[in-house]
């Protein structure tokens, strides 16, 4: 058997195992319920009915710690069991939220996600396990929810939310949880919630900061009331670009679960008209008062004409100038003679051609991993550090005395994905380094096309 055959076989066995385990736990739960019912039946056959407000013996046992809370109690739990919550995004925010929704007994739990589990998700998306790397997040998250609580209904939507499917999906749920990671989807979900009249529990996290609020609840503002115009695309960093400390979306996701559970159970005071701001690094949480519903809001304002029809036709990608499915930006700023491929660069190394390689990533990226003998000059400091490049080139030329005079040492520029390196080469050309070339596709291309052992991040 070849390695790939073994891997395939392993995959299908694991799949079968997960299915069997789920079946076992569902049957066990069923059997237990039957036994309990039989045990409870008194010997003379006439079963007395105990008033329990519609909760079964199993439910009372499972949710007992909720039931004992004076401010939550039987009514809160009964409301929760009857409720339905849709979580859009099974990532860093959705992961803990889903776990708590399943555990607390939300009657019907929907999960929307189109991505697969990746190893670099796992530090924060704690619902997924290593066995699911490469598999759909929806499948992984649904399996985890079912293994926590086999008595609730879990519905899988393995697709991206779009104007064409959002109305149909969202309309089946009482409460919507926005656990997505991009601006166009956030506008899309908010508008859809306004059109359908659903409360929206919205969370976001990046780096070491998080934000949380409830939109469109009981006359409160919607996302557009707060942000009528989308931010410029360059202001929207993703976790993949900017990084994120795993526990930060975890905290915000847990708070989203709390707010949604409060609304579903009809207890307490939802975080509507207020916003929670978390600054994890300084250990500070501030809750601020935000504006109410705006009369001028295009979605929910007094004269708003935002109908289901208009929603279906609205172009969220154009509005936010951001594609819904965020592909890595691919610039093409340079003529082909000013660019070389990673394969070509690997030959330059092999032939020991005299050259200087400048890595223009930020210093904290350079520390993660770098190509041998590269010189780290972050793009933002490039203009000020040109003399360093000149002297590195000179040194390289002196080292190779057999050089044909005038040909000099070559100058190459690399970055993570090949965008900043082009910007840098443009700048270098302007500053007189006319032969500078960028390495197409950056270190990611190096790992992909030259050395699969090169660590990517």
């Amino acid at each position, binding site marked *: 058997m070849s390695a790939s055959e073994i891997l395939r076989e392993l995959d299908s066995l694991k799949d079968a195992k997960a299915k069997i385990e789920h079946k076992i736990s569902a049957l066990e739960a069923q059997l237990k319920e039957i036994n309990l019912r039989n045990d409870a039946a008194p010997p003379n056959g006439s079963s007395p009915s105990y008033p329990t407000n519609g909760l079964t013996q199993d439910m009372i046992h499972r949710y007992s710690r909720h039931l004992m809370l004076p401010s939550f109690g039987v009514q809160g739990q009964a409301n929760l069991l009857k409720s339905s919550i849709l979580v859009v995004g099974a990532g860093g925010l959705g992961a803990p939220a889903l776990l708590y929704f399943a555990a607390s007994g939300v009657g019907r739990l929907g999960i929307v996600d189109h991505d697969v589990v990746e190893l670099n998700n796992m530090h924060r998306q704690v619902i997924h396990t290593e066995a699911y790397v490469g598999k759909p997040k929806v499948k992984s998250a649904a399996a985890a929810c079912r293994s926590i609580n086999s008595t609730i209904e879990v519905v899988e939507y393995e697709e991206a939310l779009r104007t064409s499917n959002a109305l149909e999906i969202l309309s089946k749920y009482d409460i919507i949880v926005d656990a997505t990671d991009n601006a166009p989807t956030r506008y899309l979900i908010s508008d859809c919630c306004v059109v359908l009249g659903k409360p929206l529990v919205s969370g976001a996290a990046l780096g070491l900061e998080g934000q949380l609020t409830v939109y469109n609840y009981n006359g409160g503002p919607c996302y557009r009331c*707060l942000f009528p115009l989308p931010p410029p695309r360059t202001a929207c960093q993703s976790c993949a670009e900017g990084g994120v400390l795993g526990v930060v979306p975890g905290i915000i996701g847990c708070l989203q679960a709390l707010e949604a559970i409060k609304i579903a159970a009809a207890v307490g005071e939802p975080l509507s008209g207020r916003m929670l701001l978390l600054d994890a690094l300084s250990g500070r949480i501030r809750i*601020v*008062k935000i504006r109410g519903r705006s009369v001028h809001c295009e979605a929910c304002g007094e004269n708003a004409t935002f109908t289901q029809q208009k929603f279906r036709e609205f172009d969220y990608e154009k509005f936010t100038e951001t594609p819904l499915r965020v592909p890595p930006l691919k610039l093409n700023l340079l003529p082909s003679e000013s660019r070389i491929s990673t394969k070509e660069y690997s030959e330059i190394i092999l032939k020991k051609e005299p050259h200087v390689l400048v890595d223009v990533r930020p210093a904290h990226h350079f520390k993660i991993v770098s190509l041998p003998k590269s010189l780290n000059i972050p793009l933002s400091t490039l203009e000020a550090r040109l003399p360093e490049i000149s002297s590195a080139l000179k040194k390289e030329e002196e080292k190779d005395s057999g050089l044909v005079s005038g040909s000099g040492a070559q100058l190459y520029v690399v970055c993570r994905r090949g965008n900043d390196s082009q910007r840098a080469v443009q700048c270098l050309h302007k500053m007189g380094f006319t032969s500078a070339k960028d390495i197409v596709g950056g270190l990611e291309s190096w790992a992909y096309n030259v050395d699969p052992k090169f660590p990517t991040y």
Partner: protein
Amino acid sequence: MQLTLEFGGGLELLCDSKKIHDVNIELQNGEDKLTMKDLLSWVRTNLIKERPEMFMKGDTVRPGVLVLVNDCDWELSGQLDTSLEEKDVVVFISTLHGG
């Protein structure tokens, strides 16, 4: 006038990666009050070190930036016309989209 200015959600990157700035702003001749409009132009001149377009658009903040005066949305106090007082805390925070 002594004010505490805070930048968050990535806006701190525009001012030397420093989040909290305790500042002392001298009032213009004859003026006895400072509005948010005055403060924005002061911040732009004195604190924003790079990419001012990531902070402002026209004479106000760019879309996607929340402004809070003493933990309250500036929409509720008159936006650019909000009058500031001694020791006020003004927060500029960029909305996050990650998850």
